[in-house]
């Protein structure tokens, strides 16, 4: 059974204080690892897809990296508007493309 564990469950940062979120996974055969951002009362918003170990992707203050066992979402000099829940999900080969999600990390960035 595919599993995704995210840590920490919650993270408080001061504006400008860089940090990383972790996503550990076990999957029968990884087709892709996805990062989403979810604001309260809204649906998840797509951020990145990573397909193979060593791959990195960046968007503004966010950078996602992937190894064979985990992914990190690095947040550089965060701003209050980066406050959200960040969700990690894996997609396995032969799974009809369904996503298996972790419980998310609630990030709060204080001004």
């Amino acid at each position, binding site marked *: 059974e595919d599993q*995704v564990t995210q840590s920490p469950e919650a993270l408080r940062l001061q504006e400008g204080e860089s940090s990383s979120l972790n996503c550990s996974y076990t999957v029968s055969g990884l087709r*892709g690892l*996805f990062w*989403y951002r979810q604001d309260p*009362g*809204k*649906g*998840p*918003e*797509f951020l990145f*897809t990573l397909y193979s170990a060593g791959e990195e992707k960046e968007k503004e203050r966010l950078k996602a990296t992937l190894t064979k066992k985990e992914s990190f979402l690095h947040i550089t000099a965060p701003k209050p508007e980066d406050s959200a829940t960040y*969700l990690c*999900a894996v*997609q396995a080969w032969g799974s*009809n*493309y*369904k*996503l*298996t*999600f*972790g*419980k*998310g990390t609630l990030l709060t960035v204080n001004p």
Partner: protein
Amino acid sequence: GAGVSQSPSNKVTEKGKDVELRCDPISGHTALYWYRQRLGQGLEFLIYFQGNSAPDKSGLPSDRFSAERTGESVSTLTIQRTQQEDSAVYLCASSPGDLTDTQYFGPGTRLTVL
């Protein structure tokens, strides 16, 4: 362009009643998914539609849950004889069905069963 839309945004019902939730996918997206998000839990896959193929119903939690999709357009998720444990946010996602297969989510329907 327009994203995935869902209706209603909120639904309050009494235990034992049936409810119907609607999803309008992004135009041209051939794949459609339903997920459930319960408080403090990760999103759980419910059902997947791809074009005219038979749907993947492997995530439906009980036979009280069913879903339909007409072609590559609107989908409805029906929950019969609702129970309190059905209270959750129900999210719909669609994807182009190409090799990248990124799923784009709607805003969800918050279902509360009293």
